[in-house]
């Protein structure tokens, strides 16, 4: 099992964010070890998306962030992306009027031309359906295909840490399971993953550790193998 003693892939310390006068995220600390799959669970309005947006600097926040031992607190979103912190946002964040091909190529925006082909091959291996729909406009695809594209585009950036915000949202259980299983495969290959998810059973199958967020604060940090039943989680949800 991964422990905090090794240099974490990402370590967030006392991270806080607010919208106007409302404290959406109270000072929060968490970490993801190299090659670890960590899930953040919590009810609606718990501050999960705010936490991810604060980590990736999409909103202003206070606190400290280190990535591979380097202080990245002052960096902007695009600089974090260059380091390998890539987020697939809630709602997929696709460029709807562009084709699948254009979306994927945009994912590799910082890649050298020679690297593009290999990365596309990897994505097509994971999601063959994207290969079939290369010239289709992204917004015209089904929800499941769009989510595959969102994950595929994030993978095109060759992430060191992949951050996903509710990738199963609005998807049929079978499709959601398929996408989350793919994330499990990627994690086995050594990719660090930080996943925000409401579908606890699916997420807990894959993750090594879970943080439970409620009312803008982390209520618990648990190794998933210590969670005997979902009732264990409920008391943290309704803190």
């Amino acid at each position, binding site marked *: 099992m991964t422990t905090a003693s090794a240099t974490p892939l990402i370590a967030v310390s006392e991270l806080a964010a607010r919208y106007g006068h409302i404290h959406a995220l109270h000072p929060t600390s968490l970490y993801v070890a190299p090659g670890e799959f960590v899930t953040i669970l919590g009810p609606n309005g718990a501050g999960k998306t705010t936490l991810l947006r604060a980590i990736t600097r999409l909103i202003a926040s206070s606190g400290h962030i280190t990535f591979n031992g380097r202080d990245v607190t002052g960096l902007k979103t695009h600089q974090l*992306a260059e380091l390998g912190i890539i987020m697939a946002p809630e709602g997929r964040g*696709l460029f709807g009027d*562009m084709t699948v091909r254009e979306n994927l190529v*945009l994912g590799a925006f*910082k890649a050298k031309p020679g690297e*593009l082909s*290999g990365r*596309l*091959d990897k994505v097509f291996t994971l999601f063959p359906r994207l290969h079939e729909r290369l010239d289709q406009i992204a917004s015209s695809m089904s929800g499941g295909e769009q989510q595959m594209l969102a994950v595929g*585009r994030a993978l095109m950036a060759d992430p060191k840490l992949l951050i996903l915000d509710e990738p199963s949202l609005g998807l049929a259980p079978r499709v959601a399971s398929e996408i989350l299983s793919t994330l499990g495969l990627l994690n086995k290959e050594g990719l660090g993953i930080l996943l925000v998810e409401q579908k606890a059973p699916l997420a807990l199958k894959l993750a090594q550790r879970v943080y439970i967020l409620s009312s803008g604060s982390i209520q618990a940090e648990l190794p998933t193998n210590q969670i005997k039943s979902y009732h264990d989680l409920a008391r943290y949800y309704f803190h």
Partner: protein
Amino acid sequence: MTSPAITSTRPTIKFDRISVILWIGAAVLFAGVFAYGGYLITVMQLAMIYGVFCIGLNFFMGYTGQASFGQNAFAAIGGYGTAILCVQYNMEPVLALVTSMVVAGVAALVVGYPTLRLRGHYLAMATFALGLITYDISVQWTSLTQGYMGYAGIPPLGIGSYTIEDERMKLVCLTVLALIGLWISQRLRNSRFGRALRAISGSEPGAAALGIKISRYKLIAFVIAALYASASGSLFAHTVGFISPEVFGLHMVVVTFTMLYVGGVGTIAGPLVGAIVASLLPEIVRSTGRFQDVAYAAILLLMLIFAPKGLYAVGDLFRSRKVDKPETRA
């Protein structure tokens, strides 16, 4: 390994029936204007000049999805730059045009850097103020601009002893320049740079999350739009031979917006199509006499209602209907 055909995002040119009809229509229109001559030549010359302006504006408003009401300021820099350099300093027209573009580009860089930190309506208002300030300068700084009197005697385009005096040749020259501007726009739109602009238009946070430096790309798009605007200002000066502050005033903002949206904002050829249609339309409705403004406005409104993505996108509508037919599916 994935083939280059898959990694390339450059669209292949499709000569389908709709494209062929459009090209034939454009050729017939130009042939008719050439044959008819007279005032229509002047109308088409101005359409090409405005077309250059709109192709540039499309970089900032169409591809990047930002609002600017102040690009007329850079057209004024181009127009007055050319006029002053040619009339006062006897500079070659082409050199004056290029020099004015450089000045406009630097001005856009200096003005755009702080201004583009604003978003949405605030950016629109700031750029609007830029246009108003430039207009006031062109009126008040009479020692430089000759104020309301304007600048006359600006030489026509030409290189060395060869000058383009003939009105038909001027139209040919302007059309070639507009097509070059269109070609550059098409190449850039489908490049890595163009995809970054379109990603910003789609979602700024989404683009930043992929490593795109938003502020830099917005500024580059703003400068490109300024370069095009400056070129159109210079071309106007060389074509008409006279400029005054009114040429680059609020009327230009309204007209170019109309052209951009009628043709299709964000499309490649839409700005040029819009410039031609919005320039010819007043001549077509002139026969309605005192109702011509009403007729002009009514037709524009109908276009915007029934072709909200612009006239250039109407072709895509027919294409998609054709694809939707079951018998044409693979």
